């Protein structure tokens, strides 16, 4: 009796195993063609904002059409470049911003386990931002010097920060040097850090609904500047010296007496990609995106509630010529 059961169990295990082997290794060989140099899956990282997921989906569709096996893997923005891309668990990440991932990218470059695959195209911008209706209460805006006016600061205050204004900064993990900036420029503001950007935009939405005062960190490409009417604060233009040399700028004793740097958005890949999938590597390197088009598509997804798949398909259909050029 027990022998029989054992045999049955062995049979089940064997059939499961053979099915698994069948589906993972035997079958793909049948369709082995010249273009996919390897049938192993190319893994493209998804993060948690719309733009990057759209770009990743578009790239996956391009590569799939070439015959590659492609999978989209959800992962964490900075953790992906610090672990996944280095070990080869992820193959490509399409958006690493100079403004938020500079340190991580420098580390990754130093490790030699990843490769910078060039610019995506759109330029990242991030800065203090206020809704348009705040100009009434603080007429000097968008010039940053208006914020020095105590009356202006008070207009942006809440009971626990008054008389100082309340500036909602990004999550501490983003860096950004806002505490230093406030100090260096002598702004009567208190910096409050949001934990995530979801929380940050929740506050903006809430304030905007009530036409209530708010000033916060916004970045683009993002749907917020499209949905809400407002302007960037104009700080003294960023230069490298401003962040490194105290003597530069308005405050001779402090660094960070200027605005935030603008920056590129980079594609990164696992260093082994070049040899494993040369053709896909070339396409990924050539893949670029137009800023205005990206903004429009993000709006279609986040504001008009179209699905990412749908929007990506439309883009691929429209850009067949470009794709062909990239593959040559």
């Amino acid at each position: 009796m027990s022998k029989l059961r054992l045999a049955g169990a062995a049979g089940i295990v064997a059939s499961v195993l053979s099915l698994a082997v069948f589906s993972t290794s035997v079958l793909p060989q049948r369709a082995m063609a010249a273009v996919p140099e390897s049938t192993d899956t190319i893994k493209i990282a998804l993060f948690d904002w719309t733009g990057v997921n759209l770009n990743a989906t578009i790239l996956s569709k391009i590569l799939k059409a070439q015959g590659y096996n492609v999978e989209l893997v959800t992962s964490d923005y900075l953790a992906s470049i610090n672990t996944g891309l280095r070990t080869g668990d992820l193959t490509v990440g399409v958006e690493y911003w100079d403004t938020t991932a500079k340190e991580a990218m420098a580390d990754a470059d130093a490790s030699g386990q990843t490769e910078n695959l060039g610019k995506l195209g759109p330029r990242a911008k991030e800065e203090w931002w206020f809704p348009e209706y705040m100009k009434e209460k603080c007429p000097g805006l968008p010039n940053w010097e208006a914020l020095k006016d105590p009356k202006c600061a008070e207009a942006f205050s809440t009971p626990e920060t008054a008389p100082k204004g309340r500036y909602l900064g990004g999550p501490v993990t983003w860096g950004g040097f806002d505490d230093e900036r406030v100090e260096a420029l002598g702004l009567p503001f208190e910096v409050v850090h949001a934990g995530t950007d979801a929380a940050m935009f929740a506050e903006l939405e809430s304030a905007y609904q009530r036409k209530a005062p708010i000033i916060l960190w916004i970045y683009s490409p993002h749907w917020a500047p499209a949905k809400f009417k407002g302007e960037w604060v104009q700080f003294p233009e960023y230069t490298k010296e401003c962040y490194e040399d105290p003597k530069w700028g308005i405050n001779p004793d402090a660094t960070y007496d200027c605005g935030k740097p603008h920056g590129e958005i980079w594609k990164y890949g696992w260093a082994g990609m070049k040899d494993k999938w040369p053709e896909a590597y070339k396409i990924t390197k050539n893949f670029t995106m137009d800023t205005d088009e990206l903004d429009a598509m993000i709006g279609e997804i986040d504001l008009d509630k179209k699905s990412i798949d749908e929007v990506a398909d439309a883009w691929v259909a429209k850009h067949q010529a470009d794709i062909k050029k990239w593959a040559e």
Partner: protein
Amino acid sequence: MAVLDQTAPASALRWRNWRWSLAWIALLLVAIALISLPSLAPWAIDYPKQWIIPLAAELKALMKWVVKNFSIVTRAIASMLQLPLDLALGLLAKGFTIGNGAEALHLPRLSWLGLVVAFTLLGRLLGGGRIALIACICFSYIALFGQWDSAMLTLASIAICVPFAVLLGLGFGILAYHSPKFDTYAIRPMLDLMQTVPAFAYLVPVLLLFGFGPVSAMIATIIFAMPPMVRATALALRQVPEDIQDFASMAGCTRRQRLWRVMIPTARPLLMVGVNQVIMMTLNMVIIASMIGAGGLGYDVLLALRSLDIGRALEAGLAIVALAIALDRLSQAAADQGPLDPTAPARRHRYALVALAVLIVTTLGGLVWPWLASLPKDMTLTTGPIWSEMIAWINVNFFDAIDATRTWLLLHLLNPVKQFLLKTPWIVLVAALGLLGLYLGGIRRKQGWHLAILAMLLFAFSAVVGLWEKAMITVYLCGISAIFACLIGIPLGVLGGRRALANRILGIVVDTLQTLPSFVYLIPVVMLFRVGDVTAMIAIVFFAVAPAIRYTSHGIRQVPAHLTEAATAMGCTRRQLLWRVQLPLALPEILLGINQTILLALSMLVITALVGTRDLGQEVYIALTKADPGRGIVAGLAIAFIGITADRLMSAWARRLRQGMGLAAAETGAANH
């Protein structure tokens, strides 16, 4: 506290209390002296920087070495786990793709309609019509609200995680049962850590060892969900009556036969409670797992909240709740089934055949009629816009009142407590904990001294690794939240314990609160209360109120009927019945509830870091994004040690109260009855 030792003469009692007051006053004087004369002993006020042990850096180096030398083993394990996961994903969510690229042959996944029917049949088999209806409603909700694709991704990973966690838990539980020494010195401390170190803290090591993707998410989930199974197994085996074991030995069973053929089947009901807990814990991890590559419903929630689509986030969150309720009721029904039912196999086979037939027919039918494969988009429902509009309406009309409340709480309650904890010299707080440990554990008992030393060591850990300030913010935030949760939860629990209807409604509320990912309500709360500590506190209270309700209500309901009847017969009013009989008898359970509330509050920390708190949770979160394993583990341990300290102190308090009220006698009396 006056009812501690009823046998002692009144004068001795007074002297003893007097002595304790003296000790506390002495400590207070030391604190005042230290603060007013800061030059006296600056090291006692702020922990000196040069004394900090750079544990994080050392752990990071160790981790690097482990990854370098053992990643072959861990990667092999990962690829082994990948196979069953791929199978489950293929069956439930993605279908199987054979071949490459565009010309690939695609085999369909199981049809949604077939699965709804199959789960309904399973419910009918396990628990009759009511369970069948619940399963049917839950899975239909998922299909109709357009959550099917993601829900099946989630279900597939649960389907693989749960068996692994159950088997591992069973193994460790049996080990703990066989070797009490191993249990005390290895398994129990390990379980304590597994349940109190936040999952975020070990995500980075898991990622480094097992690679990015669903498998890592699975492993983290298994670590998180296993402890209740170990505890349930050890407890269940210990509870198997002696005579059954003796009978098995007399019948000539070998040791192994006795375990697997006699003891495990006898212990089945309690084991199934463990399985049920594993399922619920697995669902709790859905959001966190989605951050490192599991995808599914958790990812939908995150994505929807990133674009501030509260309605969509809520619907995805409720799909997790629906999945949880369906699986919870099904597994509970399975647990309630008698171990021996002679008609069961034939009935089971009949049901299995019908379900299989429906699955095959609908799945193959899906090849012809696409709506059977996946429900078309225009047939799905959404309530999304309503929710966003509701929040907007509250926001526009009630924000001023809400903001006034928030400001008041912040200025008059939260900030003063925070300042108090931050300004008090660290050494005084550590000493105070030691004193509390002695007081609660009993100064004359060896355990009392053990407790005091343990509490002091665990608490001082935060200072030694340089996280004192963040640890104090943690204590303040969790402490206040736990107090609020108890103030709300215990009265509700009392209500539930005394009225059946209230109990049923509260049951649903508690289930929802515990499985609805807290992130879903975090964002609306941010819209109304702004980023900051008040928002974090509200989120923690929402999550941590559940055990306070559940344990209180359970405690009141299990007061033996003959006691309440006797009390009523003696002429107690309802109020007297509550205060003199029910509450005192339910006190141990209520304390256990408070204990669990504190632990849950601590486990919410990492989530609250997402709305900008500056506590240990934030430290863990920063470590995750910077992929620094050492930093995350150290901060995680600091959280765990705060939790373990609270747990031990609460347990000591509960024991003390029980002894003081002579409850031990009442309990055994009730058990004998």
